[in-house]
């Protein structure tokens, strides 16, 4: 019993450490612009200005520790150009690729008035006439 609990504790610590490491490096790296003039990145490797990497350790459901190296390439403005994941130890390749399909980034936003050469703004649809017409009725039912 003790052995099982201890093992789970070690696993939990390793998992948290991995998440923390990944989040810390990735999130800081992807906090990109800080009031600089916006320029769209190119997706070509020629545009890569910086590569950072971080090791992440996490446990599989079979309680095998996976070690994965995430390599994140950004351009001069900090835009993500490419993300790769290299398996270092024991990792299931397919699972690693799935894990690398998403990144957590900090979104601060930038005033539209600060952007240049924008053709359109992609938005959620404005409220429809039909919705406006029955809004009072809806509110009365709350």
């Amino acid at each position: 019993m003790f052995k099982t609990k201890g093992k789970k504790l070690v696993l939990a610590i390793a998992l948290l450490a991995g998440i923390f490491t990944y989040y810390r490096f990735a999130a800081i790296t992807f906090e990109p612009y800080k009031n600089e003039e916006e320029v769209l990145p190119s997706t070509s490797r020629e545009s890569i200005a910086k590569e950072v990497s971080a090791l992440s350790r996490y446990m599989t459901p079979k309680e095998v520790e996976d070690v994965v190296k995430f390599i994140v390439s950004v351009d001069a403005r900090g835009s993500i150009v490419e993300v790769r994941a290299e398996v270092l130890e024991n990792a299931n390749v397919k699972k690693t690729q799935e894990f690398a399909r998403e990144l957590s980034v900090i979104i601060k936003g930038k005033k539209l008035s600060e952007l240049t050469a924008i053709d359109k703004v992609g938005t959620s649809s404005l409220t429809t006439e039909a919705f406006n017409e029955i809004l009072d009725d809806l509110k009365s039912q709350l």
Partner: protein
Amino acid sequence: MRSLTILRVNCNRMQTLEFAGLGTQWTVIVDDEQFSDHAKGAILGFVRTFEDRFSRFLLSSETNAFRHALPGTYEISEEFADLLRMADRLRVLTGGVYDPAVGGLLEHCGYRAAALGELPTVSPQDFVIHQWSLQENALLIIAGPIVFDLGGMGKGYCIDVVGKILKEHGYRYFLVDGGGDILATEKRDGSAWRIAIEYPGKPDTAAGVVELRHQGLAVSDSYRRRFGKWHHLMDAQAKRSVDSLVGCAAVASTAWAADCMTSGLFFAKPEQFPDVAREFSARYMVFRNDGTAIVSSDWSGAIF
């Protein structure tokens, strides 16, 4: 109530057609010196007809045709079958959380055509969403009446058809904006269209910029069409509004696929996002309520 009128046509190299349709504002831009009246008429006619056929707020529409239907098999139009077929893919992908048959539930929550008047009071939890399936172009209604609500997915389909109409009229360089969801080719000079993505809940702020070149973009958030605790994105299983995320954006090869992707993001579990993205060959950004976002690693564009 329904309006579909030309508001403005610009006279420069970029010719613009603006109109209201499907309950939102549309802008069609052709990067050409001529935007023929014939092409404009075809676009306006199609959007008007599409709205007549598929708006849940028009009681004569095809989506309302099964409001009083008994169980059985019904022939439906090829276009409606295409829309429901795609909706069925989303239903399967999300484990039934997305279901276009929530139209009746939305109506009982108050989001309904004024012409329906008062409806019997039914708790959302007690409202029964009847099952349906497709067999080729036949709709099988298993237990009882259904009101369909195609939502943003229908608009994406409509945007793509407007793009086809433009191509049929010889236009190769254009952008179709249907209420913020966009289909764009490249510009005449070969450059991409630069599109800012609105930060959810902040209309004056961009979360990023993408370049579109023969691609569709869909953006959705849970701030609009909200009434107190309710929202128009309804979980068909839990029978309550979806509030797991505050907004999302998707880029795919068509506006329809991009719209399906944003619907999938709202209704799928986070661990299902990559599967949904694979289904629609889409890239995505999901906004969480803590100022962070999940971005697919193939996302291309500036993030602010």
